[in-house]
């Protein structure tokens, strides 16, 4: 008679091991295929790395003479910041109105809602690159074009976020106001605005921060702002001044992040309300009180509004007639959307081939980056290591993230060589920093009880990691990896082109800047969008299957 309980147990473990084995092999195969496609040699890269780091420090460190350029650099930086803040605020205002129209509590349902979500998705998923090319085509190279590019992306992103926030508010509060006999407008100001204000300001600040980070690349593509200044010094081999620019950009990004974090923390905190009598001395009843969080929200909006107005006042609008350019832009957009085609410059086969190259680069970056990030996230989580180590690591990541990816890549282009190595190594910095931060924050949310339970059995640190931390957080880890992968793909499109690795981004450049073919730009954008959508679908499906069911 077979011993049934142990037979079942054997089968259970076997099944588990096979599953893990299958996943590992699948990942390995994908990695190897990608590697072959983009001709990336990890060993060689590893050996080149120390030398390139030394070279970088030697050449990119700002010298005394480079400091003479500081005023010019700071001016460009300031203008870039104004454009980024303006894009965030203007897009937030429009996004809020549009989201109200499509939301569940007070919006018009059905077709209108679908339309709103569609506009947001399109706006959000079209890569900055494509917007940059399309808009530069119509508006020329100017700061205003840079603003528009950032606006497009921000608008799509914020509309979606605001829509989600509005849909998630307590339906009961809205129901109560309907039953009081309030109009939709009254419900908006009395329920929706108070209930969404914290989230909205949070997203607004996040968008400002993100825009300042993206502004460098956008500046390079639209010939404006600090991105243009960097490229100027970089391409004329004045690496010391370029290094100074990098320093300024990093400081601005870190400053924005610090302010944003501080404000977001402050408005969430509960305030002590004055418990005073509500009837004032002169018999007037006071119904509005200024709490600290209200003050902060209003002043944040006020500051951003002032910056926006000032930004628009002194922005360079280029040499084009704005009205004509806007009409032209709509026309171009129409061509892109409704008449995609290769225009005879390439075959579909060539385009697909290069698309695969871009995907392979993204796969390798994400794969290697995830593993490194996982390893680094462990000491970065303050509940798994000590506070000092954790803070140092977080600071280093903060600094790494403060330097835009494109600059990392361009540094490695000159210190290693053009090609896949520079692309992958450069992109890895942000991938690792972003994922390590996400993972470590996730680890820090671990229930102390589970960790204590394992510690009290005498388990070692590594055993705690493999038996508690990883399994508990597997969902989060996978989620973040996929989010980053989608992000990396979009980045790789443009970055691979800029560092000589080719890929579909290179063809996009040619189509926009040499052949002036909006048809081809449209086709390539569709292909990238298709990949984004497929990635999103795959990731949702995989997460559904691999995810541990958390029903209580």
């Amino acid at each position, binding site marked *: 008679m077979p011993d049934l309980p142990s037979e079942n147990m054997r089968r259970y473990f076997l099944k588990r091991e096979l599953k893990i084995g299958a996943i590992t092999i699948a990942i390995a195969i994908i990695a190897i295929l990608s590697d072959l496609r983009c001709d990336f040699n990890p060993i060689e890269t590893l050996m080149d790395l120390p030398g390139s780091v030394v070279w970088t420090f030697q050449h990119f460190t700002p010298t005394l003479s480079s400091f003479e350029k500081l005023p010019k650099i700071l001016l460009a930086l300031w203008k870039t910041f104004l454009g980024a803040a303006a894009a965030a605020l203007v897009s937030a205002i429009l996004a809020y109105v549009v989201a109200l129209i499509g939301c569940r509590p007070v919006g018009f349902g059905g077709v209108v809602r679908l339309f709103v979500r569609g506009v947001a998705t399109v706006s959000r998923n079209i890569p900055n690159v494509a917007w940059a090319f399309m808009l530069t085509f119509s508006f020329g190279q100017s700061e205003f074009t840079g603003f528009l590019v950032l606006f497009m992306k921000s608008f799509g992103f914020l509309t979606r976020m605001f829509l989600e926030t509005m849909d998630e508010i307590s339906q009961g509060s809205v129901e*109560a106001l*309907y*039953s009081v006999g*309030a*109009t939709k*407008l*009254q419900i908006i100001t*009395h329920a929706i605005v108070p209930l969404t204000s914290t989230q909205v300001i949070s997203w607004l600040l996040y968008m400002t921060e993100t825009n300042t980070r993206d502004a460098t690349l956008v500046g390079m593509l639209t010939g404006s702002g600090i991105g243009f200044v960097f490229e100027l010094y970089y391409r004329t081999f004045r690496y010391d001044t370029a290094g100074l620019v990098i320093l300024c950009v990093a400081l601005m990004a870190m400053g924005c992040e610090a302010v944003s974090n501080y404000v977001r923390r402050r408005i969430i905190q509960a305030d002590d309300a004055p418990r005073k009598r509500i*009837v004032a001395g002169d018999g007037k009843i006071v*119904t509005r009180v200024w709490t600290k969080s209200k003050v902060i929200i209003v002043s944040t909006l006020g500051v951003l509004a002032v910056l926006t107005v000032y930004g628009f006042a002194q922005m360079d609008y280029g040499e084009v007639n704005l009205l004509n350019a806007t009409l032209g832009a709509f026309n171009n957009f129409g061509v892109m959307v409704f008449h995609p085609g290769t225009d005879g410059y390439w075959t579909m086969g060539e385009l697909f081939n290069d698309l695969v190259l871009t995907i392979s680069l993204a796969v390798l970056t994400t794969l290697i980056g995830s593993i490194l990030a996982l390893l680094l996230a462990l000491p970065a989580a303050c509940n798994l290591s000590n506070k000092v180590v954790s803070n140092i690591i977080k600071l280093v990541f903060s600094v790494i993230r403060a330097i835009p990816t494109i600059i990392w890549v361009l540094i490695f282009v000159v210190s290693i060589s053009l090609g896949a190595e520079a692309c992958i190594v450069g992109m890895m910095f942000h991938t690792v920093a972003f994922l390590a931060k996400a993972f470590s924050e996730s680890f820090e949310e671990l229930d102390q009880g589970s960790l204590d339970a394992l510690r009290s059995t005498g388990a070692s640190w590594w055993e705690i990691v493999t038996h508690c931390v990883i399994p508990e957080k597997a969902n989060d880890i996978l989620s973040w990896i996929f989010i980053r992968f989608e992000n990396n793909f979009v980045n790789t499109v443009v970055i691979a082109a800029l560092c000589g690795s080719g890929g579909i981004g290179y063809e996009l450049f040619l189509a926009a800047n040499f052949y002036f073919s909006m048809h081809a730009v449209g086709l390539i954008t569709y292909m990238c969008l298709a990949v984004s959508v497929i990635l999103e679908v795959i990731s949702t499906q995989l997460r559904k299957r691999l995810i541990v069911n958390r029903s209580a």
Partner: protein
Amino acid sequence: MRDNETLLRIDNLSKSYDGKTLALDNISLALGEGEFVSVIGSSGAGKSTLLRCINGLIKPSSGSIVFDGVEMTKLRGKRLRTQRRRMSMVFQNYNLVLRSSVIQNVLQGRLGYKNAVAGALGIFSKEDKEKALSMLERVGMADFAYVRADQLSGGQKQRVGIARALVQEPALILADEPIASLDPKTSRTVMDLLRTATDDLGIACLVSLHQVEFAREYSDFIFGIAKGQECCKGTPCDFTNDVLAGVYEDEDLLDA
């Protein structure tokens, strides 16, 4: 059915959510001015649906609801809003705007009386503010006027909810399981407030409840619903334990 002026008359009200099962099946009910009526029944019997059909939050499948002489089921837009302000609702989950202060929440009860723009901008007249203050004093929450609603306990939130309902100066208060989430002592406070609203201010109350003892103690009339259908009705004296067993079916009520 009753001597006083009939304020609310429901005739043959039915509601089906999916076209097959009936959440409400041919309910008929009448309520006079200044009358306190409880609706009792087990969870899922249809009490919430009934209350929400009355003020139009849910559209009934068939039947008529006549409130103050006006047929509610046909109303839309402005006319619906005008009728709605004559009846206010108290919810099981309080349904306050948690990020706003207590006084702001109570003032929102006056929104039905304001024009669209003034209301949207939150411009309330002196009378509105005085009424709000007096209602807050009535429920004993005047000292909490500036406190943000999410910092209150459940009982305090419900009292603010009642203040909001009272400031509407309604003819009828619909209370959807107002004490379901509260402890016995706080529940008593809330029921007292509703009863004094009827006794002192002449406001009719239609209250749905689980707690049979409270129904017996506070109501002028009790209406029992089981599985969407009327199962029994009468004064509290008529509601003996045998009758109640019918409402709650096999459940053992004698230990309640």
